C-alpha cells in the first residue's frame, strides 16, 4: 500500500464530511489497522474490538463535519474517537476491568504500518524523551493507563499500591511531562 500522508488524510476527511462514501472507504483502508490495534489493546477481545471499530467509522462518518484541523490532526482525532469508544466499552465491564495483567496479545504480522500517518517524528521523539525523564514506575503507570485504558482503581490493584499514591504519581508525572514538552 502506498504511504498515506497526513495531508492525504485531511483531504479524505473533507470529502467524508461532504458525504463521499468512497473517501470513507479509503480512510478506512489507510487507518483501520491502526485503530483496530488501539481497540484490541484496550479490549483484548477481537469480536468486541470489531464492534467498536464499526461504531468508530460510523461516528467518523456522522461527525466528519465537526473535525477541526486547527484543533487536532486527523490521526489524533480518529484515534481519540477509537480510544474513547473502546474505553467506554471497557468501563461497561466494571471499574476493575483489566485489573489483572493480560497476556500479551497475539499480533498478526503483515498489517500495514501507519507510520507515515504519524504526528511528526519530532513530536514522537520529544514525548519519548520526556517520558524517559520520569521515574520508571511513573512512566510505566502512565503508559499502562494510556495503552490499556484502565481506571486509577484497576491500576492501583494491578500495581498493588494504594489508590491515592497511584493517582499522585500519575498527576505529578503528567505535570512534569507538560513542563518538559512546553518548557
Amino acid at each position: 500500500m502506498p504511504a498515506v500522508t497526513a495531508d492525504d488524510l485531511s483531504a479524505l476527511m473533507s470529502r467524508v464530511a461532504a458525504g463521499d462514501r468512497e473517501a470513507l472507504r479509503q480512510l478506512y483502508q489507510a487507518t483501520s489497522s491502526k485503530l483496530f490495534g488501539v481497540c484490541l489493546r484496550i479490549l483484548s477481545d477481537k469480536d468486541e474490538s470489531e464492534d467498536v471499530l464499526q461504531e468508530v467509522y460510523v461516528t467518523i462518518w456522522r461527525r466528519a463535519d465537526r473535525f477541526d484541523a486547527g484543533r487536532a490532526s486527523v490521526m489524533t482525532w480518529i484515534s481519540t474517537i477509537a480510544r474513547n469508544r473502546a474505553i467506554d466499552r471497557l468501563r461497561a465491564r466494571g471499574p476493575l476491568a483489566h485489573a489483572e495483567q493480560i497476556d500479551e496479545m497475539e499480533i498478526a504480522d503483515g498489517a500495514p504500518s501507519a507510520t507515515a500517518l504519524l504526528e511528526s517524528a519530532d513530536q514522537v521523539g520529544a514525548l519519548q524523551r520526556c517520558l524517559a525523564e520520569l521515574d520508571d514506575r511513573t512512566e510505566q503507570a502512565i503508559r499502562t493507563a494510556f495503552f490499556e485504558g484502565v481506571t486509577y482503581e484497576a491500576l492501583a490493584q494491578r500495581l498493588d499500591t494504594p489508590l491515592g499514591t497511584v493517582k499522585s504519581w500519575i498527576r505529578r508525572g503528567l505535570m512534569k511531562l507538560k513542563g518538559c514538552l512546553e518548557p
Partner: protein
Amino acid sequence: MSDTGPEMNEPEALAAEHALGVLTAPERAAAERRMASEPAFARAVDAWRRRLAPLGMETTAVAPSDEVWPRIERALPVNDNNPQLARRLAFWRSATVGAMGLAAASLMVAVYLGNRPPVVIPAEAPAAMPMLNASLNTEGGQPLFVASYDPVRQALIITSLVPPGTDPLHVHQVWLIPPEDGVPRSLGMVEPGTAKTVPLDASISDLAHEGTEIAVSVEPPGGSPQAGPSGPVAAIGALGEI
C-alpha cells in the same frame, strides 16, 4: 497532599486524566458534559490529547477481518452534515435506476409498468436527522445510563453504566416518556454494564424527539407488573441534540 509535591490545578488535572483515560464511567460522562459546556476545559482536554497522541503511534497495527468494512457500509446513514446533499439528491432524482447505494435506494421506489422503462418516483428527501442523546442521571446528578436515538434507524441505543452484577434481584426497565401525554412506554430491560439497541415501532418512534424523557426504573424480575413503572425511577434524562 503536601508530601506529594506540586499538584496541577483541578480542571487541568481532570483534563489530563480524561485524555489519558483513567477516569471511571460516571467521571468520563461528567467530563464529556463539561467539555460541551466549558470551552476552556474542552481546549485543555484537546491540548492533552495532542500531547499524548504520539504515544498512540507505538500501538501495533492489526488488520481487522474483512467482514468489518461491509458491516460499516451497511450501517452508514445518509450523513446529514452535507452542504451538497440537496444537489446530490437532485442528481439521484434525475438519474435512472443504476447501481444505487443503500442511501439512494431508500430515497426512491422503482415501479415497473409492463415493458415500459422504469419510472422513478422520488420520495420526499429526508430532513436533516441528527442523533438525539440523553444522559440519564440520578437525582444527585450521577449519570447511570446513556441513551441515543437514531432517527435514521428508528432505534434507541441504551448503554448502562451500572457495574455488571449489581443487584441481581432486580431488573432495569427502560421507559420513553413523551411530553405530549407524559405516559411512560416500556422499551424493555437493559442489563447492567451492557449496551442494547431497541428498534422502535413507528407509533413510538414518532414520540422520540427533542424533550422526550428516557427513564429507567428498578423492577422485579420480568419487569413491571403494571402498565407503567412499579419501582423507583433510578435515572432520567431528556433527549436533545448534543
